[in-house]
């Protein structure tokens, strides 16, 4: 069966289930189908460790009857099974309570412009297994060729091709295809009892924009060896510089706090701050599902609402919560095209960059910490409190002096947003949530 026939078959299945649901008495029904192809190879110490290749399909459905909602999912796409799931869902919905905010979005006839978004790369489906294996092997080989590297967690190359179909009882029926590829390596340096470790990866929609093995390997090596022979520091309050990967982490926490679901549930410390100043003038944050070729780009969200560029924070003022249809209705706000399954997810959620280089930010810092990595779970969206184990580089007189470990950083997101004093020019869309290097005026670094 060729690609087009397969596409038609899945769209026909989605439409037929929507009709079946209507005939069984639902008020509204939505059906989504994902059809994916996955390839991954892990290599370690010059040999293939595992090779996975598979195709799989999943179907999800949501029904609403008398303002009551029920969901179902299945990886069994047998028609009888799916019809039974629809019937069961209608029966279960009767036992739920009516919710005046339940409902599917009405389709918007906006142009969806799938090819313009540039999220599918046919080259990925044409890569041979040998080529993919060779990329992983080469990346690990380059990383291990550095004598300071003592062991390998292995290198991986992965590809994904996903075909998504969405249909609902308001007449929405669309599909699109997207691709991902990713090259990564994880390594250790140092002896058994004083090991340090890190990894690096490149993930892209298109094979041609993926970082080559040389670049991924060198970055992983650099990130690992800079942590060798760490010291402890005394507990103190100092300026803290977040590398882009750390800014991404901080922004991930911010996203959780501006998600409409957390807001209407009052699980975010920003719940009552819409239109108010929540940070200083350095903070401008967008969520944009329309940037061609980026990881968080998609034509419409999981409910079929077209994506767009949303201003989340403008010069410190909270402008928008990111919503799916339900959270939007609860907050009396429009859906922002951020529906993701039953919840809210980011498109390209990013902090607008500044114009100073990260090197200059370091040079201007007399004493402080460059935050390299954090571990742990200490994030509390209800209060904005942050408390995490950390690894970093200590700065003295504008220069990197030595690595530090066994420290924790503690602070509060609300406080940090008001204390950003520098913003780098190094924004790269390496993940759906991303930002440049930033410098925080001061945070508590706990050590000895």
């Amino acid at each position, binding site marked *: 069966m060729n690609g087009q026939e397969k596409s038609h078959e899945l769209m026909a299945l989605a439409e037929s289930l929507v009709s079946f649901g209507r005939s069984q008495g639902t008020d509204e029904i939505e059906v989504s189908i994902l059809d994916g192809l996955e390839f991954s190879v892990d290599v370690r110490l010059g040999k293939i460790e595992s090779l996975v290749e598979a195709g799989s*399909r999943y179907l999800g459905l949501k029904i609403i009857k008398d303002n009551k909602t029920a969901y179902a999912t299945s990886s069994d796409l047998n028609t009888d099974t799916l019809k039974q799931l629809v019937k069961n869902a209608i029966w279960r919905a009767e036992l739920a309570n009516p919710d005046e905010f339940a409902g599917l979005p009405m389709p918007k006839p906006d142009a969806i412009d799938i090819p313009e978004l540039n999220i599918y790369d046919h080259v990925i489906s044409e890569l041979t297994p040998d080529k993919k294996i060779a990329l992983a092997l080469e990346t690990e080989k380059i990383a291990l060729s550095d004598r300071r590297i003592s062991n390998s967690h292995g290198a991986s190359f992965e590809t994904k091709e996903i075909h998504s179909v969405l249909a609902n009882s308001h007449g929405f029926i669309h599909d699109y295809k997207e691709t991902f590829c990713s090259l990564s390596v994880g390594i250790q340096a140092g002896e058994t009892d004083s090991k340090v470790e890190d990894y690096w990866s490149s993930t892209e929609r298109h094979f041609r924009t993926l970082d080559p093995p040389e670049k991924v390997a060198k970055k992983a090596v650099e990130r690992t060896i800079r942590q060798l022979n760490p010291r402890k520091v005394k507990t103190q309050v100092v300026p803290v510089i977040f590398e882009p990967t750390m800014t991404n982490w901080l922004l991930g926490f911010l996203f959780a706090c501006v998600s409409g679901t957390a807001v209407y549930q009052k*699980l975010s410390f920003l719940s009552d701050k819409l239109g108010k100043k929540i940070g200083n003038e350095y903070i401008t944050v967008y969520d944009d599902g329309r940037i061609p070729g980026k990881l968080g780009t998609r034509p419409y969200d999981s409910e079929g609402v077209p994506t767009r560029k949303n201003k989340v924070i403008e010069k410190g003022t909270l402008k928008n919560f990111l919503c799916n249809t339900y959270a939007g209705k609860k907050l009396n706000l429009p859906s922002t095209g951020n529906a993701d399954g039953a919840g809210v997810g980011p498109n390209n959620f990013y902090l607008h960059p500044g114009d100073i280089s990260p090197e200059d930010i370091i040079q201007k810092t007399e004493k402080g910490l460059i935050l390299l990595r954090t571990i742990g779970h200490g994030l509390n969206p209800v209060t904005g409190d942050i408390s995490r184990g950390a690894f970093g580089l200590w700065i003295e007189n504008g220069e990197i002096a030595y690595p530090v470990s066994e420290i924790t950083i503690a602070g509060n997101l609300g406080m940090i947003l008001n204390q950003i004093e520098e913003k780098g020019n190094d924004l790269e869309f390496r993940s759906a949530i991303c930002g440049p290097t930033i410098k925080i005026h001061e945070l508590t670094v706990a050590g000895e």
Partner: protein
Amino acid sequence: MNKRDLLNFVDHFSLSRGDLQKLLNTALAHGGNFAEIFLEYRVYSSINMEEDIIKETSENIMLGAGFRVIHGDQTGYGYTNDLSLEKITRAALTASSIAEGSPSQNSPPFQSTPVIPNYYPIHQSAQDESLENKIALVKAAYQSALTCDRKVKKVKVSFIDQTRYITVVNSEGQNLSDVQPLVKLTCLCIAEKANKREAGFSGGGGRVGMEYFSKELTPEKMGEEAAREAISLLEAVQPPAGEMPVVLSPGHSGVLIHEAVGHLLEADFNRKKTSIFWNKMGQRVGSEQIFIYDDPTISFFRGSYNIDDEGTIPKKTPLIERGKLVGLLQDRLSGKFMNKPLTGHGRRQDYTCIPIPRMSNTYIDQGEYDPDEIIISVKKGFYADKFQGGQVEDSGKFTFSVSSGFLIENGKLTAPVKQATLIGTNIDILQKIDKVGSDLTFGLQTGTCGKEGQAVPVTDGCPTLKVAKMTVGGFK
């Protein structure tokens, strides 16, 4: 409604023993040493209540087959949820391609199935329970939390139950199946007072039947526990910062053993020499009071199973005894490679995943100290009560987030403390545990452990423990 219609395992995999035998031979077509087929059918359902209403329910079906071929220390894997013979055969061929020769063996006939113990002898299956009764349970927990105190502003309760049918057949003639129930009721509660807002959490379940909620943990008690935690945090102060004696609460602190020690005793990290323990077998790695076990055979526990996900019958596995490293958690691949007997710790999230060594129910065994005396022995320190989670690196460095704790002043628990972080290096802490309490307790039956993107249910436990010195992260 006859829900049983959807649940007949055999009907979904219309594969005879002969078909499975043929597919194993197909998987060995390129000369692999070992082939395995993992069949999974899982039905799970959920109920969510918030804002005083039952918001939604769900029913979910997962069905698929995974093929694994091991050749030397290399693994080929293919899976499919399209169960046509054509697609299944293709998955077998995908897995076979890890080897590049011609077949050297045929799969032998299946052995007769051994009688295996059942660690989840439940009475009233949640899957067979009426939706009305399950909703009543959710409402009971919700009401209990909401009415516990006027400061409680918001409650969220969810109930999830699943039944997982698995069959493992392999080219060594094994053919084993298991039916694994799993139930979880959780309650999240938000309390407010004078612009302060805090969250409390409670929950329970395991591989249990509905009788658990009348005998072991009632929904009313659970709701109350979540509310009490949120309310007590309203009075909490910021944590102290720096190095100090730390007392770890029984039960909840088990996560520390899981993260800081358990993961690094998974055989794969030792086979690959990335774990700090890889060259320490038989050596002293902690104080003499430390005994650590992983036991998948504790009845009704969330982390338990009758067979692991590669068909091994599991055993209680000693990891550290008298402070000496004595064992690792093995899966088939590492066990073969390290020439060690299998312990039954090869687990996978589902049929799309390659099994890897995982924990089940991990704990530090109890010692001799009276828990109250342990606290009395600390002049100034920190008591870690509940944890939000933790993480460890292969190098042994770890971090734990303490959601609630207390200051210890002159041998007494005083001010409640919120959101502290504990950091350290595992061997260092194992050596610094200088008092092990006599009160072994297990944490909530709600835990899920993630490794390499695979989530599996686990539990952990420990008695009251005193660590002589540990770094606490906080504001002051």
